[in-house]
C-alpha cells in the first residue's frame, strides 16, 4: 500500500523512466535465456544474414530488429549485451561515487594538507576531458570488463569528491557535530554516523546521473575497440560491428543504440527527479557536465 502511494506520487516522466529501466533489466536477464534464437552461435549464415527488421527467415522465425552478418538475431543479442552494458555502467558509477565520497569525506573532515592534495588531484584530473583520460588508461592496460570498470571509477570520482567535501566541511562545524564530540563520540564515528548521512543526498543524485554517463562511456570505449571485447556483446561493440555494413544494412549498427539511448534518458530523468526531491541544492553542473559523454 505504501509503495502504491509512493508510485502514484511520482510524475509521469519518473514513472516512465523506472518502468523502462525495469523492463530493460528484466529483458536483459530473461530474453537471452528463453529466446529460441542463439545470440552467440553462428548458424545458417547464407539464408539468415543481414535480414532487415520485422522480417522472417526461411525457417519462418520472426526477427524484430533483423539479423547481423552472421545471421544472429539482433534483438536477442541486444538484450544479452544489456546484461554487460548495464552491469558495467552501474558498477562503474557506484564505485566512482564510493571512491569520491570516501576521498571527499576525509578531505573535508581532516582539512589541511590532505584536503589540499586531494582537491589538487581532483582539479588536475578535471582539467583533462574524461574521454581522453579514459582512452589513455583503457589503451594502456589490457582491454576487458575489469579494466573498463576500474577506469570508469578512476576517472569519475572527482565531481562527487568535491561535493561531499563541501558538505562535510560545512557540517563539521555545526552544533550537532560539536555536541556529539563533546559527548565523547570519536572523530571517525562522528563522521560516519552524524556528518555523512547529512551529506549523502548529492552523492546519490550524482550516482544516478553517473549511470547514464558510465553506460555511454563504456559503449564509446567498446566502439573504439578499447572496452568489452567480442564475442562478449556490449551495446558499444555491437554498434562497432555494424559499422562496415552501415551503407547496406544500417540496422545492424543502429538497433543496439536504441536500448542505449533509452537507458541514458531514463537514468538522466531519474537523477533529475531525485535532485528535485531532495530540495534541489545540488548544483546542476555537478562535475564536467557536458563532457561526461561519449
Amino acid at each position, binding site marked *: 500500500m505504501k509503495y502504491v502511494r509512493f508510485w502514484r506520487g511520482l510524475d509521469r516522466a519518473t514513472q516512465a523512466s523506472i518502468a523502462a529501466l525495469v523492463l530493460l533489466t528484466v529483458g536483459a536477464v530473461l530474453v537471452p535465456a528463453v529466446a529460441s534464437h542463439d545470440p552467440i552461435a553462428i548458424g545458417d549464415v547464407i539464408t539468415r544474414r543481414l535480414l532487415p527488421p520485422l522480417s522472417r527467415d526461411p525457417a519462418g522465425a520472426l526477427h524484430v530488429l533483423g539479423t547481423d552478418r552472421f545471421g544472429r538475431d539482433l534483438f536477442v543479442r541486444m538484450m544479452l549485451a544489456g546484461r554487460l552494458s548495464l552491469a558495467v555502467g552501474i558498477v562503474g558509477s557506484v564505485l566512482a561515487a564510493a571512491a569520491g565520497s570516501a576521498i571527499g569525506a576525509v578531505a573535508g573532515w581532516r582539512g589541511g594538507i590532505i584536503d589540499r592534495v586531494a582537491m*589538487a588531484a581532483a*582539479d*588536475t*584530473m578535471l*582539467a*583533462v*576531458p*574524461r*574521454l*581522453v583520460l579514459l*582512452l*589513455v*588508461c583503457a*589503451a*594502456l*592496460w589490457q582491454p576487458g570488463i575489469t579494466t573498463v570498470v576500474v577506469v570508469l571509477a578512476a576517472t569519475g570520482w572527482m565531481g562527487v569528491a568535491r561535493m561531499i567535501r563541501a558538505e562535510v566541511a560545512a557540517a563539521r562545524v555545526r552544533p550537532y557535530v560539536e555536541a556529539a564530540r563533546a559527548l565523547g563520540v570519536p572523530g571517525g564515528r562522528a563522521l560516519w554516523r552524524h556528518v555523512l548521512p547529512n551529506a549523502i543526498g548529492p552523492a546519490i543524485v550524482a550516482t544516478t546521473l553517473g549511470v*547514464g554517463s558510465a553506460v*555511454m562511456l563504456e*559503449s*564509446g570505449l567498446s*566502439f*573504439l575497440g*578499447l572496452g568489452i571485447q567480442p564475442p562478449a556483446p556490449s551495446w*558499444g561493440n555491437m*554498434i562497432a560491428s*555494424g*559499422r562496415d555494413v*552501415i*551503407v*547496406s*544494412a*544500417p540496422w545492424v*549498427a*543502429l538497433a543496439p*543504440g536504441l536500448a*542505449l*539511448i533509452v537507458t*541514458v*534518458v531514463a537514468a*538522466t*530523468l531519474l537523477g533529475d527527479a531525485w535532485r528535485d526531491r531532495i530540495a534541489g541544492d545540488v548544483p*546542476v*553542473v555537478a562535475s*564536467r*557536465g*557536458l*563532457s561526461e*559523454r*561519449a
Partner: protein
Amino acid sequence: MVVRRVAGAAVLFWLVVTLVFALVRLAPGDPTVFLVPPSATPVEVERLRANLGLDRPVAVQYARWAAALLRGDMGESFALRQTVSRALADAAPISIGLGLASLLLTFAIGVPLGLLQASTRGRATDRATTVVTAAVFAAPTFWLALALVAVFTYGAATLGLPSALRLPALGIHTPGLSLSGWTAAADVARHAILPVVTLTAIGAAGVARYARHNFVDLLELDFVRAARARGASRSRVLARHVTANALPGLVVLFALTLPGVVAGSVFVESVFAWPGLGRLTLSAIAARDYPVVLGASIWYAAAVILANLAADLALPLLDPRQRQVTR
C-alpha cells in the same frame, strides 16, 4: 587577482602534464614491439630502445622530456617518422575548424532554444522540445554520426533523394578530384556538413538543457516581475533583463562545453574519417606512440584550462557582483 588566476592555471597545467606522463610511462607494454620487424634480434631491439631513450630510468625520462617541453619541443613520434609538434600542427587545424564551427552553432541554437523552453515552461512547446533534446543528448556521438551516414547512403539510395540533397557522408574531400581554390574549399565545406551537424545537434541539446534550467530560475526572480509590472513587454524583458543576467551562467557553460566538443570530435573524426587530432590520438594509442599520446593529451588539457581561465577572467567583466573590491 588576474595574476593569481593565471599562475593557478599554469600550476594546474603542469600537474596535468605530470599526471599524463606518469600514466603513459608507468603502464605496461613496450612500444618497440610495434616498431621492429619480427625478425629483429634482441640486440637490435635494445639499440632501438636506447635510441628512443626508453632504457633510462623514468625519472630521467621525465626530466629530459619536461626540459624539452619548456623549449616547446615535444620530441619525435615513434611511429610517424616526424616530430610530435609537426604531427599535431598538421592535424590541429582540421579539429579546430570543426570544433569552432560546431561550438558557434551550438550556442547560436542552444541558447535561444533554452530561452524558448523556459518562457513556455510546462506547455506543449516546452514539453515537445525537451523530449527531443533529452533524446538527442542521450545518443552517443558515434551512433548519431552513423545514423547520419546511413541516411545519406542507404537512405539516399532507397528513398531516392534529389541530387541537391545528396551529401557526401565520409571523408574530408572527394577522392580522385584535383580541385583548387574556391572549388576545393566548397568541396571540404560540403564534406563538413554532416560532422558539424552531429556535433552541433548534441552540443545544442546539452546547452539548451542547462540554459533552460538557468532561465527558469531567472524568470522567477523579482526584477522580472517588476519589469513586467512597469509595462515592459514580454520580449523586452527577455531580451534586456533576463539575457543580461544569464550571461555569466552562459560563460561558465562555454567553458564546460569545450571538453564535450573535444570528446565528440574524437568519435566524429573516427566515423567520418577526418584526419584531425582525434584520429591522430586514436592511432597513436593503438601504436603505443607515447610522445604523440602525451602531446595530444597536453593539447586537450591546455584547451580546457584556457577555456576555464577565460571564463574566470570574463566573469567579473560581465557581472558587477563578481567584482572584488581591491584595497
